[in-house]
């Protein structure tokens, strides 16, 4: 009786399938990495647009404040033919965090500033008195001054207030 040899057991996965799998695995990894790179760039691009829009909006808000609180040195210029005497000065300034106020009425060392016609002067006070050592930085000002005219019997009194940078940028000019 003829005997067949025991049938050879076949490997369940064909060799061509194994080769395809061997190729597919690194290709899959490559694809995944390329996708990740693509997704990263895409995220950065979208995020950068969003951040730019937010930053521009924030900058717009801050620019108004920035302009408003820009500190300048308080200077007065007398362009009148009269003698101007600054009797009182009030000023708002800041250190970047908080607003502070200078009030010359509270400072014994403050002397009225007399401006002859055509002269100018910085407005500041060097004093050891607390709250009175002021370098003239200002963004809001208030002052009282008098103008004496030789032809008039009485001098005129003026009270002025306003944002400092909003008027004659470099010098508060009496005209």
């Amino acid at each position: 009786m003829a005997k067949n040899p025991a049938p050879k057991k076949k490997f369940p996965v064909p060799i061509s399938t194994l080769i395809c799998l061997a190729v597919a695995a690194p290709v899959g990894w490559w694809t995944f990495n390329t996708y990740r790179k693509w997704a990263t760039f895409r995220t950065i691009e979208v995020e950068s647009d969003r951040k730019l829009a937010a930053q521009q909006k924030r900058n717009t808000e801050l620019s108004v404040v920035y302009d408003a609180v820009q500190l300048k040195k308080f200077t007065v210029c007398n362009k009148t033919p009269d003698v101007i005497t600054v009797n009182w000065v009030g000023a708002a300034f800041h250190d970047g965090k908080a607003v502070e106020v200078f009030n010359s009425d509270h400072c014994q060392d403050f002397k009225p500033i007399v401006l002859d016609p055509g002269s100018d002067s910085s407005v500041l006070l060097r004093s050891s008195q607390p709250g009175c050592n002021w370098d003239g930085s200002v963004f809001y000002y208030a002052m009282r001054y008098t103008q004496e005219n030789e032809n008039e019997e009485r001098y005129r009194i003026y009270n002025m207030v306003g944002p400092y940078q909003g008027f004659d940028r470099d010098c508060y000019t009496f005209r």
Partner: protein
Amino acid sequence: MGTLRLHRHGAPPLEVSQDRVLVGRDPSCDMVIDDKSVSRRHAYFERRGPGWAVVDQGSANGTFVNGAQVMDAELQDGQELRLGMVPLRVEMESPMQGTVLMGGPALGTVMMPAGGMPPMPPPASAPAGWGAHQPAYAAPAQPAYAPPPPQQYAPPAAPYAQPAAPAYAPSPQEEAAALLGVHPQSTPEDVKARYTEMAADLETKLANARTPHLKTTYQRNLDELQKAAEMLSPGFTTVDVADLPAAAPTVVPHEMDISLPEAVRMMGERPPDADQPKAGLPPASAVAIGFITMGMIAMTAYFGLSAGKQRKALDKKLADPAIVQAGNDAIKYKSIEALEQAGALVNGKLKLCNKGTQPFEVGWIGAVYSAKSPDTGKTVLTSFNSGFCGGNDLRVVISPGGEKAIDISGSDPRCKWDGQGLFYSVAFKDPKDPEKQLRLAGPLHNRTDCANFGEGW
């Protein structure tokens, strides 16, 4: 030798007289049935002993006998055979054309030639025995012959009458020996050796079978093999042998040297090349993975090209003046972020509180406040100066301990202020010296508390 006739409705009968006739749609077949439901090589008819059998050749639409699908079936006269959708009626003609059927007293119907043909002698004996190579379904014995008693004469049989039953049937032991391919008197060792060999082969095929049908077939073969071994060598296995298979041939592929028709053997297993793809074609799994890989390569190409473009666009965008400007502005505005967060441009209400012991009259008020520009809609800073007010527009006297929220509405358009501001300055008339003024100044942004004065004045 008898002839097989296949009657087809509306067509002349097909007559089969050769020992083996291949039927199918292909013109090369011995018998051509031109019908789409018939496979090219559908089945063949094979002479088996005195009868005929039909063996399906793996046809697409199957072969049916009396409605039941068959792979290999012996045909009987009058059966309804169907190849695909083509119905055929089976007629088996005796070699002695024109026989009449007569009832026999002991053996049932016997055949007798018509026209007084002398009866055939009965067979001398039963088959000589079951050799090692004797097929399990060896030709049935010739029907026993008996002279026809005149009183039991029967009219001529119908053309499709059942053929006479064989008079001899092999014993279960003989069948079992045939199944195993051993002699009925073989020693238990021979039976065991043969069983082990065949069972191992079947188990391998069972393990590798890819369809439920094949598994069922192999399992059935294995069970029957086990029963046969138990029959020949009791105690060999624990199988209940009460239902040993009948004389019907059992499909045991290849190893059984019992002359099983090829088609019967093939019924239990896949064609040799069924598991293998056609030459030159990779397996479906490889093709699928190949397609997936190509898809991945295409996606990689897309992502790679797109990422390159994105990177260039990103580099270009990062160098955009708008972005550079925004960055520079952000650095510049960093210094006043704290002020902005403290509400540097949020107006606060001016409320004056007299902490002194005597009443004070306001002589002048100035303020800076933020407002939306009616022209541009942007926030702008503007100032209020009560110097524009008429003599009665600003009449504010605050008694000791009193407080006053400032709200000025004079007749002059420049003399209107609701007291909301960022910075204020107030000059009070000195009660002692009308020419002298007492001045106050301070921030108002976000302020809700009092601006106190008078204490110590």
